[in-house]
């Protein structure tokens, strides 16, 4: 903010831990090391965090270079408050399993919904974009 008062800039966020939400639904957590004018990000020591219900699991990913247009939002993580979360961390295998189960359930529900609508003569157009999660 000191650099460019009155504007939003990522300069002040360099070298801080951030949570980045991508357009495909992934959540990345890492240290923001570098940016450019398109808000392309370089994340260091990145971890992909998968949330299912009250549980989450972290998959270490290393260094990420994210194209700016794929970012939905990002925010700084307060390192002290990071652990004050009601969520429970589980292992990677477990969370992936949970995720799979959740996806399955969602698909089933979707299928039922589509079928029900079809029975009533309605149809929902499929959203064939990436931004659905």
């Amino acid at each position, binding site marked *: 903010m000191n650099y460019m008062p009155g*504007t939003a800039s990522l300069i002040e966020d360099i070298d801080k831990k951030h949570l980045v939400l991508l357009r495909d639904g992934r959540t990345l957590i890492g240290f923001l090391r570098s940016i450019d004018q398109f808000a392309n990000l370089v994340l260091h020591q990145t971890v992909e965090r998968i949330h299912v219900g009250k549980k989450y699991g972290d998959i270490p990913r290393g260094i990420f270079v994210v194209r700016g247009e794929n970012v939905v939002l990002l925010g700084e993580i307060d390192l002290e408050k990071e652990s004050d979360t009601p969520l429970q961390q589980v292992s990677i295998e477990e969370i992936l399993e949970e995720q799979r189960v959740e996806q399955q359930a969602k698909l089933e529900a979707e299928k039922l919904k589509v079928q029900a609508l079809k029975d009533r003569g309605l149809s929902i157009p499929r959203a064939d974009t990436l931004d659905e999660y």
Partner: protein
Amino acid sequence: MSTSTSEKQPLWIRLLTPEPPSTSSSGLHSSQGPEKSCSPLAPEEELVSASQLEEEEENENEEENLDPDLALDVEEEEEEEENSLGDPAVLTAVHNAQKGLLSSPGIKAPGVLGMSPTSLYFLCQTLDYLSPSPFRPTHASTSSPARHFGPRLLSPDPSLFCSSPTLQSPRFSHLTQLHPQHQRMLQLQQQSRTPSPPAKKPWSQQPDPYANLMTQKEKDWVIKVQMVQLQSENPSLDDCYYQKYYQKLEKRQADEELLGQRSKVESLKLVTPYIQKAEAYESVVRIEGSLGQVAVSTCFSPRRAIDAVPHGTQEPEIGATSSQRLRVLYWIEKMFLQLLEIEEGQKDGPSRPCYSEQQRNQVEKLFQSLNTPEQNHLDEAADGFLQVLSVRKGKALVARLLPFLPQDRAVSLLLAITHHLPLLVRRDAADQALQMLFQPLSKYINHLTFHELLQGLQGLMLLPPGSSERLVTAVLQNQFGISLLYALLSHGEKLVCLDSSLEESNSDHTVWTDIVILIAWEIAQMPATSLAEPLAFPSNLLPLFCRHVDKQLVQQLEATMQLAWIY
């Protein structure tokens, strides 16, 4: 000791459990002894006074736990009196708390705090940060050390304890709008941080090995790019909201400064840098003597179109090669620029009357450059003028210049055109663009004197050597020619009608009659198809012919002209 156990528990638990009556009762009443002014208390009081926590009354206890490195002797001393709560520091704290935002007017007992559960939880949260185990810094400042992901290294930031005392208010710009509760929380954190006891051992900061991968130069570059995108010629238009807001803010600060409420605080303003636009450069290089243009094309100016090639019948010009033509074209361009200037200057002002001195000069200069031949020397020195009129653009130039000319100049122009009409008509065969001259010229026809008119028309009646037909025939076949002719005749007729003195037989009148008869005869002679359709057919032509020629001819004329008119 009770204190050691109580240290493990969060404070609010300690508060809720019933305390020994001695502590509870003495907590409120200042039936204490004189304040101990022993030095160990001093740092504590310092802590208390500095923090000014409103919602917390457990300052004293808190501060005990604030820093494990606090001199143990102090802690130990306080431990003894902790249960008594008769400490003056506690009193201060209690008083502070009483002034605080607690809804209940007073604190009945430390056990019953009278606080809502949410604020209790708040307290718990804040206190948790300050509890020694596990020790965690309360705030990640701008230069917080990096945390390696995985095992958490909880190294506190020494800047926490040595934060600059000036930053009492949240250190954001004036634009950060925080929820009041959020703001209060941050304030609490900062206040609890600002006490920087000098006796503190500086905590060694774990340096972030990956810090500053992005160098300052790179940061500046990104900022520069962003600033360039923001710059504008008219910020009050493009960035209205921010500018207005900033003005309001400055005014408010100035007012507050005047009232002495606030010391001069400069709010930062976004100022975009002014960056020079890249200079436009000539991408087309003309080298004298080369064949055309050197092909230098860039994204800013792709290859220029080749110069217009003259098409149409080329008259054998003696010695005048294409360079002559180019010269004429170039000359026309130059004059056109002058004309555009004149038109530009006149655009704002009213249509005709008041021309500024400068404008009149410009017009005169342009006229001179046109090289209109003089009245007496109509035949000579007409070359340039005619060449200009042979080109379509030249005709446009003259047509647009005419409205600006003073009367006498325009008249001389008109006469020159009339005199050379056959030649012009011949040269216009390809373009057929003379028509654009008709409108402006016709305005000035009315200003011709009879004599001038006759002079103009006489030239048309000549029979050129080596040709059987008169020049006027060609004129009649051209639309512009015939229109101009008709207009001139009509004007002559008008003049004759108006001024009876001209009716008398004098040379002029004879000439006039001759001309009329001749023209009438020529018209009758021509097949109707080759007679061009005039742009305007004056009503007094037929009566004119009636008067001068016999009836039979008139009838013939009528037929021909009507037919031509229909066509």
